[in-house]
Every structure is written in C-alpha cells, then in structure tokens.
C-alpha cells in the first residue's frame, strides 16, 4: 500500500487515481479485461461516437514511423445508440467498480455533436462525464477540423454546454494551444484533454503514394511526448480548469512529466496497443515516483515544475 493519496478531481469527475486511457486506443475497456482488472484505472475514455454510425476510412489505417505510429481510422463508430446497446452493461459495471467512464462525442457539425451528446445524456447514466473531440472534419467548412481555430472550438463548446450538467471535457488538437484553451474555458469547458494526434504524412517513395489510405493521418506514440508536455504546460499557464495530459505516455516517468507540467490526470493511448498491460504498470510507476518525491497527496505535484 502506498502512502500517497492518488485521488484527483478532473473538473468534477472524481477519479481514484490520475491514470486513464485515451479515446480510440482502448476499445470500450472490455478488450483489456484479459490482461488486468480495468476497474483499477482512474478512468477510461470511450471511442468517439456520433449520433449516426460512421464508416471511417478505407484500409490501410495504420503504419509505423520512427518511434510512433500513424492512424487514419477516421472515427469509425457504430453510433451512440448501438454503442450503448452493446457496451452499456459492461460500462455500468465498470463504473460501479470505481473506474470513471468518460464518453467521447464526435460530429461533423454543431448539430451532430449536440445529437450525440443528447443521446448519451439520455442513454448513459453510467457516464461520469463527456469528452468532446473537436478534431473531426467540419463538413460546413470544407473538411477543416471543427477545432481548427479558437473561435470555432469555442462555438462547439458553447452549443453543448446547456445540454448536460455532467462535466464536459474538450479534446484539443495540437495547435494554437493557449488561445484555444482560453476560448474553451470561457465557453464553459470543465476540463481540457490534450493532445490529440498530430497531423503527419508518410510516403512510400517507391509507389509515390501515402502509406495509408489518405494523404495525411494522425501521429501518436512516444515521439509526440515532448511536444505534448509543452502543450500541457502552455494550457496550464493559460487557464484555471484542470487538464488531462495525453501523448506518448509509455512509463510512469512520462506521466509524471505531464503532472509536473500541470496535468491533473494522464491518459495512456498508443501504449495500450503495443503493450496491453501498460496502464496499470504506468499507474504503479507513477505512485512510486510520487512516494519518492515525499508528498502525501499526488495533487501537491500538479504543476510543480520549477522553471
């Protein structure tokens, strides 16, 4: 038993510890029960779901680059209704086991986001809160991401704010962080998750074509970590709401960097795919680090980076 209190509060979502999992890299959680007791995690974030099903992009959807991967899943999902029908029972049980369930919503327009959130609000009593992924292509703006400017990001948040009293997180794209963070705080976000994958490109120089089915795709894994830490620190300096740090967390030390930079919680993403038992190992390593820092409560370490 560790002497450090690990419980944290992510904008109203109470978590037994700071370690969660990143949307899209953890199925609905069930897939990991063969590796460890998922109930030990602080939170899981479900894959992005829209009101209606999305097909996502054609194969191939993943390729390897130096110390990372690129994916172009394209937010394939069965829609909120079907997702809850299939996974609701498991997720309710998980919530009862003490792991906060955060449901992510996606949409191509403000209306689509709103429909998804309303469906969840109605169908998902197990959800401790919601995460709004603003990296979806905006159909009205010719495919530019919904969150590509601070203004547009805030617009989405403002429209969703009245639809639920549960905490709403916004999952930010890795660009224009301080301005966007401030705009989202003003628009009523309870917390910020960052970063989403970084747009990137990998070309097969023999065929002159993308190694994936689309020209660009999202970069994740250990290589994004130093960029993500900087962005979490920028967001922490820009806003007062809590931050969920995401990006390239492979070890407890990586998680500790996020916490020092100002994150209240940390989500593990790609690490789940390459080493399925990563999240509980990272939690144990984080706890040991907190102990070695001589604190009684992990909250004392949030933002404790010394410049």
């Amino acid at each position, binding site marked *: 038993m560790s002497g450090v209190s690990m419980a944290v509060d992510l904008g109203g979502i109470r978590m037994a510890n700071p370690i969660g999992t990143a949307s899209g890299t953890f*199925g609905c959680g069930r897939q990991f029960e063969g590796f460890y007791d998922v109930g030990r995690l602080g939170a899981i974030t479900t894959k992005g779901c829209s009101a209606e099903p999305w097909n996502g992009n054609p194969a191939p959807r993943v390729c390897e680059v130096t110390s990372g991967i690129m994916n172009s899943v394209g937010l394939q999902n069965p829609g909120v209704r079907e997702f809850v029908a299939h996974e609701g029972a498991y997720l309710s049980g998980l919530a009862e086991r003490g792991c906060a369930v955060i449901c992510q919503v996606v949409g191509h327009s403000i209306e689509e986001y709103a429909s998804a959130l309303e469906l969840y609000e109605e169908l998902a009593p197990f959800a401790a809160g919601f995460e709004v992924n603003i990296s979806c292509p905006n159909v009205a703006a010719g495919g530019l991401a919904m969150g590509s400017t601070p203004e547009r990001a805030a617009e989405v948040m403002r429209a969703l704010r009245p639809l639920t009293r549960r905490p709403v997180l916004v999952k930010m794209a890795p660009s224009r962080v301080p301005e966007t963070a401030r705009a989202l705080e003003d628009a009523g976000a309870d917390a910020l998750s960052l970063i989403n994958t970084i747009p990137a490109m990998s070309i097969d120089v023999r065929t002159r074509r993308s190694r994936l089915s689309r020209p660009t795709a999202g970069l994740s894994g250990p290589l994004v970590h130093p960029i993500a830490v900087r962005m979490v620190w920028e967001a922490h300096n820009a806003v007062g709401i809590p931050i969920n740090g995401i990006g390239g967390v492979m070890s407890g030390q990586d998680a500790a960097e996020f916490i020092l930079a100002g994150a209240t919680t940390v989500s593990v993403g790609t690490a789940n795919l390459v080493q399925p038992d990563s999240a509980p190992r990272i939690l144990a390593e984080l706890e040991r680090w907190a102990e070695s820092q001589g604190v009684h409560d992990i909250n004392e370490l949030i933002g404790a980076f010394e410049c």
Partner: protein
Amino acid sequence: MGLVVARQTAGLHECEVVGNGPDAKGIFLLRMRAEGLSRALAPGQFVNVAVPGDATQILRVPLSCSGILPDEGLVEISYAVVGDGTRRLSEVPVGTSLGVVGPCGHGWGPIEGKALLVAGGIGAAPIVCEARRLGVEGVPFDAALGAQSAARLWGEAALARAGAGEVLVATDDGSAGIAGFATLAAERLLAKGGYSCVLCCGPQPLMAAVAGLAGKAGVPCLVSLERMMSCGFGACCTCNVSLVGGRQASCCMDGPVFDASEVVW
C-alpha cells in the same frame, strides 16, 4: 461450417524461442515454448509478436500459427521475411523470450464434408495448421498450393503428411508443379467437384479470385484476410474489413477468417 467459434480472450504470454531458422527460400520456422497458448490456440487464429532489436519500431508483428502442439507445449509459426520486422524476427536467437499477445481472432471453425484448401506463398501457414486438424479429425481434403518458385514453395510435404487426398502445386515460373498461380490449381481441383467448402489464404488477389471461383461453383468459401494491425485484440479499429452492406468488421476480432461472400473485394 461457420464462424461461431467461442472467442478466447487474448492474454500476454512470455514464450521462449526453442527453434528459429530457414525452412524454404525466404521462409523461416519459429518454434516457441508456450504451454498456455498451445492449449488455447485453434487453427486460423494468430498471435501478435513483439520483435526485439529496434526500439524505434513499436508495433508488434501479427503471425498465424502454422503448428499447434499442446502435448509438447509448443507453438509453431512459419513466416516470410518481407520487411524489417520479419527480418529482425529471423535474427532472434534460441533462448530469447518473446512477448506474445494471443490467441487473437477466431479460427476456421468446424468443417464438414470434403474441404478444398487453397494457399499462396506464406498464406500456407494457417492452411497447413488447419490441414493437420482436418487430418486428425478425419475430414477429407485436397489442397491447391502456389508459390513463386520451387525454392520458395512451402507446405507441400506438410499437407501430404496431414492426409491430403491430392496436393496440386503451381509455381509462377513453373519450376515445380503446373506453371501459373495457385488460382489455376484451385480451378482445376474445383472442377472435379465434391467439395463442401473452400478455405483460402494468400495474397489478396488470390483470395479474391478464389472467392469468385467458389462462388461460381456454389461452394462456400472462407478466407483468412490480412490487414495492417496495431493491437490485434479489438481495441483500436485500425484493421477494418469492409463487408457487403456497408458494415465495417475488424480483421483481428471478427476475422482474420471471413466468409468470402461477405467481404467487399
């Protein structure tokens, strides 16, 4: 015939390499001590292997089992060296402990009547594995086997030993068997009739062609598909297979074995 095989939940296994060496030109046989896995795996299932040697490459390599030996606690994998991951795997010395995720996906499922097995290249791995089961269970089968050349041909002896009625070999360059693709061999065998199902694994064009031939012949066809994968156990949606009717399946969980008539080729 059908795909309703009870799914084992994938787990993490540390498997000791007890053998790893060339078995045909460009094809290696890996043997691992894997007590638990060897009892859990079914032909057609695969494992996702962390290959050491280059920390900049973080994805595992998905590989079907070609041999399952629960009595000896061994799992066999036959793999072609095609890129960096499989090259590094080919250099792993005996005694190394490999981190393996599995069993992944579901297998070929129960087969009744007489089966036609069709394989191209290293696609023979899960086909040979299934042939051994059919042999043990006394299910009759023939096999069509293709390769680029005689040197690269893998699986002929194993299929015969497993109890194949007939093994028709085709090589692209005619250096063994008939000259041409495995499709040609499959076509000739199918023409004889009497098959209740076709099981096929190999390059995507081969599988698409064989699916077409089987469809025309009115014989149900199962194919073992390949996709670029990350997790191998249903967590990431990177391995999608488009099914007719617009549904997206995951190759790693809903496959890798699919009913060929449901796949958008």
